[in-house]
């Protein structure tokens, strides 16, 4: 028995050492490390240190779901453009909200040469996706000022919070849009537009909040996978609907002297 035991022990040890990383404890195990933690904060740091010009150019994608290969093509294409300031992923970087899908999505976006920011989408919240998002990307609602424009990222996935009346957080949105010295105009981005999944009780208040100070030059959202520009508010704020990544089309928005220019690029 001695020899056999030793051989088994030897092989077991070799097996363990060679297979480290394949051992999986749960589909819901969140143990992000390094560049998979605090991603939005890190990228914001990078963005605010870049040389700023008079034009802001943003490449949008979103709704990755299970189209991870297409996300790779998107990243490759964006890396060929010289003038992109940053990339916004409009949410649903995962299909099932699984930590592993978060790792895939962010793993591919890490290859972007420019900074990127990722919004929360409804699919990202299934299971323990909320914890995964917070751990990987940070706060669900956040904002920053870049070249005199305030960018407001808003969690509008009301249904995932059982229409609890606090999502989207209109008080927070209202505070963010309240005029102040550090910005002149604002851009509001969110995953889910009013419709199924967006709290119907908050829809009117949402539009009113956006229009309150006449300073929102654009809203951008995803969720519907197709592209269009439409004007649902009383004061005709352009709403830009961003392509799902599977269409292999991206929406690029240029902001110059508080005006927006929307174009689409195939990849």
């Amino acid at each position: 028995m001695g020899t056999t035991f030793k051989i088994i022990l030897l092989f077991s040890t070799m097996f363990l050492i060679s297979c480290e990383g394949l051992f999986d404890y749960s589909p819901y195990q969140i143990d992000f490390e390094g560049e998979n933690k605090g991603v939005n904060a890190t990228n914001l740091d990078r963005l605010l240190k870049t040389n700023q010009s008079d034009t802001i150019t943003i490449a949008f994608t979103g709704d990755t779901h299970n189209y991870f290969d297409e996300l790779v093509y998107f990243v490759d294409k964006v890396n060929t453009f010289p003038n992109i300031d940053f990339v916004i992923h409009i949410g649903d970087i995962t299909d099932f909200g699984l930590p592993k899908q978060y790792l895939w999505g962010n793993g591919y976006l890490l290859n972007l040469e420019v900074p990127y920011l990722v919004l929360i989408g409804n699919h990202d919240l299934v299971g323990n996706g909320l914890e995964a998002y917070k751990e990987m990307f940070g706060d669900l609602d956040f904002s920053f000022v870049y070249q005199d424009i305030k960018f407001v990222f808003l969690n509008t996935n009301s249904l995932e919070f059982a229409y609890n009346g606090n999502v989207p957080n209109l008080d927070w949105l209202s505070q963010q849009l309240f005029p102040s010295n550090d910005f002149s105009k604002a851009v509001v981005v969110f995953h889910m537009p009013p419709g199924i999944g967006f709290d119907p009780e908050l829809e009117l208040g949402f539009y009113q909040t956006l229009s309150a100070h006449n300073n929102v030059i654009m809203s951008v959202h995803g969720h519907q996978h197709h592209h269009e520009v439409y004007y649902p508010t009383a004061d005709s704020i352009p709403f830009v609907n961003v392509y799902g990544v599977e269409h292999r089309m991206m929406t690029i928005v240029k902001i110059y002297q508080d005006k927006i220019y929307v174009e689409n690029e195939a990849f």
Partner: protein
Amino acid sequence: MWKMRHFSHWFLLLCILIFINNTQAQSHVGKYDWLLPDYVKLQYAGGIGFLSAGVGYTFVHQRIDATFFYGYVPKGIAIDDLSSVSLQFTAKLIRIRLSENYQLLPLNFGWFIHHTFGSEYWIKLPSHYPPEYYWWSPGRNAGIFVGGELKTKWLAHKTPASGIAIYARIGTRGLYLASKVGNSSIPITDIIELGFGIALYR
């Protein structure tokens, strides 16, 4: 260093299991002995827990196993601890007798269903969603695996156990397969759930 600590936990639990088995050494045959599980298992990883304890029965001349596991992932390994149960069925297709004391079962196919506890891991779509809003259940996933087992008669003369086995399994689950389809960029190793364990047979 933290990974070494995991393995030491595993070995500690293994020792406890063997110890408990030893102390219960009795040789009477009871009326309800058939109710006793045919084996107990302790498994590391395999997607159903950091450590999982299982009991099971064997059917059809030891060719089919049904095992119930409770699996646990402690906080520290994941940001929140996770409890889950799984039920698995294994078909042991090939049995090779190596010697008096060793049997190799190199081709075991298995299917499992895994339920993670917690309200966020629902099985039935919560009522606030429109019907069929999501097609899958975060709380209940099924998966498949293939594995091998080495059955030995170690401890057979010192304990009531007829033998002890070590096994390894390599598997995946439906949600991972659904993610992999159409995505050559996702390495196959990313959807693999590897695990190994030890079984004590009655």
